[in-house]
């Protein structure tokens, strides 16, 4: 069953929190992974991998650079579920 955008955001926040130690409520749609959350390219790949497993989607490596904000990632995952 497809996850809603808010479920994806919640799940993604848990993954980001686990990887970075940030509180989950710091992970909101408008935050930039690099500029706001200070997540580097390798941590980003860890987050992407866990998100793929959690939501049952495939996020190609080439696509990751387009996921600038948490909202971008939520939107991509939501679309990829279809």
């Amino acid at each position, binding site marked *: 069953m497809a996850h809603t955008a808010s479920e994806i955001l919640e799940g993604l926040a848990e993954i980001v929190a686990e990887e970075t130690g940030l509180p989950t409520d710091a992970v909101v749609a408008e935050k930039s992974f690099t500029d706001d959350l200070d997540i*580097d*390219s*390798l941590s*980003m*790949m*860890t987050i*992407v*991998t866990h998100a793929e497993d959690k939501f049952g989607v495939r996020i190609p*490596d080439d696509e*990751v650079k387009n996921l600038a904000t948490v909202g971008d990632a939520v939107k991509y995952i939501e679309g990829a579920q279809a």
Partner: protein
Amino acid sequence: MTRKALRQAEPVRYSRLLSVAAERGSETVTNDDVAGPIDSSDEWIRQRTGIVTRRRATADVDVLDLAEAAARKALDDAGLTGADIDAVILSTITYFHQTPSGAAVLADRLGATPAAAYDISAACAGYAYGIGQADALVRSGAARNVLVIGAEKLSDIVDPTDRTISFLLGDGAGAAVVGASDTPGIGPTVWGSDGSKAQAIRQTHSLRELAADGSLGMPTLRQDGQTVFKWASFQMAPIAAKAMAEAGVEPDDIQVFVPHQANMRIIDQMVKQLGLPEHVVVARDIADSGNTSAASIPLATERLLTEGKARSGDLALQIGFGAGLVYAAQVVVLP
């Protein structure tokens, strides 16, 4: 007329590592030494890779010199001479001859002629590929003792301005002798390749392209760091787990984990994915030696043994992975 029955080589039941030895580049290169041309810093390199220094050889030393030094120590440690070796397997990507092989030249230098000698191209998985082959050669009866060498002078193919991989690289050689054993010493090798990701770690151009345009200069290496990180961190842990399962051991039975020293972040993630217990000693030689491709596993193993962090008889899980993409893992009893 009856045809004579063909005789095949008599198999040997078990094999083991008789020795592991290492030779590092003599020069210590700091992060500050490499940071300038890539507009980076000591802090950035440490945070992204865990590397503090890398060891590089001087201009007058070539890859076969490094290989020879490590091989001589491995022979000494095994109590053998070149004459006892039936096969020499050299894994390297920095011996710049299509032919003859570096292994044949090396075998001659070591007094191992007429041992069978050949090079393998399996990049950072080369040592684990070589141990897998040596194990098969010894147990099949094709060779009594096999010398496996992973040797790289990667400083010959670095581009100081490349931000993808060059700053990681170091020089060194590791060697092991594999021979017959009364008890099991090398678990089944779990190995493979994925050529669909051949571009993930690559040369900038081929030798044919260089011949056509000399201005290109020596090819250097590039990698898609994120792709390689994801593949190595998350797809290699199950390969290492399979090597344990095929060897009939659990993570609790392992004393030492020696992954290819590609990047400390990959090592940390693999340890997490594998769920290795606290008591397992994890090789982190990359901090001082850098990424030495085929040499990294024996370099790291030798260091743990020399420093007393690992002991003879310990069970070590080792896994190599790299350009190809290729990988190989096995559980070994340390010599």
